[in-house]
């Protein structure tokens, strides 16, 4: 299987820093803003951004992890049921600015489920979407990110995977053909 790196560790870091700066620009002190990562892989983006932002601003930012398994629209259309990950949101998001975070935006269906799942925790004032990779031209739903790490043009047969130093041993984004 041919794997092509489309973002190396150096550019990976630059991208994360840029996303953090953009968030700072729009949310300043993060007083009324919470970051919510989508399980499972959005959590890595969330953790990195949290680290950068908290160091820069010298404050703690409210963060949560959201699992969307029970809100998916492909339940029973899959071979096997998906086993849920942990949802960990110990605050109410009523009237908060929420930044929803995921690693790859593809069809937009995960984000649609995420918006549904989010409502169980209150009515946010405003929801924004941050994705590390945006595979434009592959959307099934009218959903666009507010913050994008990198936009890539791909065929639907291809896969984009974001790898993390803490999990895979190296920060990079790879593109490959589905086996």
């Amino acid at each position, binding site marked *: 299987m041919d794997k092509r790196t489309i973002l190396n560790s150096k550019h990976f870091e630059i991208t994360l820093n840029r996303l953090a700066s953009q968030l700072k620009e729009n949310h300043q002190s993060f007083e009324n803003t919470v970051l919510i990562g989508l399980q499972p892989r959005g959590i890595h983006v969330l953790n990195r951004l949290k680290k950068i932002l908290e160091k820069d601003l010298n404050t703690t930012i409210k963060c949560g992890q959201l699992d969307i398994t029970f809100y998916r629209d492909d339940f029973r259309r899959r071979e096997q049921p998906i086993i849920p990950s942990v949802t960990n949101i110990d605050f109410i998001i009523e009237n908060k600015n929420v930044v929803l975070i995921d690693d790859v935006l593809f069809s937009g269906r995960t984000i649609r489920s995420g918006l549904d799942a989010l409502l169980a*925790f209150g009515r946010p004032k405003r929801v924004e979407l941050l994705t590390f990779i945006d595979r434009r031209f592959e959307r099934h739903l009218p959903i666009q990110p507010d913050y994008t790490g990198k936009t890539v043009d791909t065929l639907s047969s291809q896969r984009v995977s974001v790898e993390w130093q803490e999990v895979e041993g190296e920060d990079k984004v790879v593109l490959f053909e589905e086996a």
Partner: protein
Amino acid sequence: MNNLSVEHLTGIKDLTKNDIELIFKTADSFKDVINRPIKKVPSLRDITIANLFFENSTRTRLSFELAEKRLSADVINFSAANSSVKKGETLIDTVNNILAMKVDLVVMRHPNPGAAKFLSERIDAKVVNAGDGTHEHPTQALLDAYSIREQLGPDFKGKKVVIVGDIRHSRVALSNIYCLQKLGAEVMVCGPTTLIPKHIEELGVLVEHDLKKALAWCDVANMLRIQLERQDIQFFPSLREYSMLFGLTKEILDSLDKKIVVMHPGPINRGVEISSDVADSDQSIILQQVENGVAIRMAVIYLLAAQISR
């Protein structure tokens, strides 16, 4: 494996250890859901479930109905007391009439042992056994084991559980024995000789007739209700005598040199198998069992519904 090895839940006997652990893992997520401000998820929006209760039930029926509603399924309820069963309709006819209304999953309680299995072999819908006579009550056993896991941790190896009371008429006891043994726990049954089935040792359980000895041995005591409605003859001289010999009181609990966990599947007969102060003590997890019941039933229904293809 993210899939159950069975197509219906008729009894714990047919489940594997993996199945049970998968149900527990899924229930963890649902327990989280039912403790949120909005306790509902849309997973089963297009599923219709019939709750068929041919025998009285409060807890189990409410628990199932709540679980189904929290999964967003459509629910219809049926109880035999005010139905055509009284007019002589057979079980299969009753159920087929209900299925003609396009039902995907049936939850059934029935007074005859094997009724759930009988049904599962003959109809084109998923079947969940909510108690069939004196045979099995699988979701009760799952929620009991799940509650034990919450108290004592996920490894059941070496954990000792005693089931006290009317073992002979109890579907809860049989399902609990299967479930706990599959998970690796040691099981003992305790009660008057007349209420312990012959040859029960062949299931690999210990038998004890002295409550004190049984309690000194165990980590968890599951106290069963005396099922007067299933007893066609007298199995013990009087409730008072039963209560003196097999009733769990604060006195006996305090005389033990360790703190055991006390469980009861409900409904409780206060002052018979368990005294009020024990039922309400901090060692009793009776109400946690009820809460866990909803999460367990959500998990079972969710995993079975996942197998239905459109």
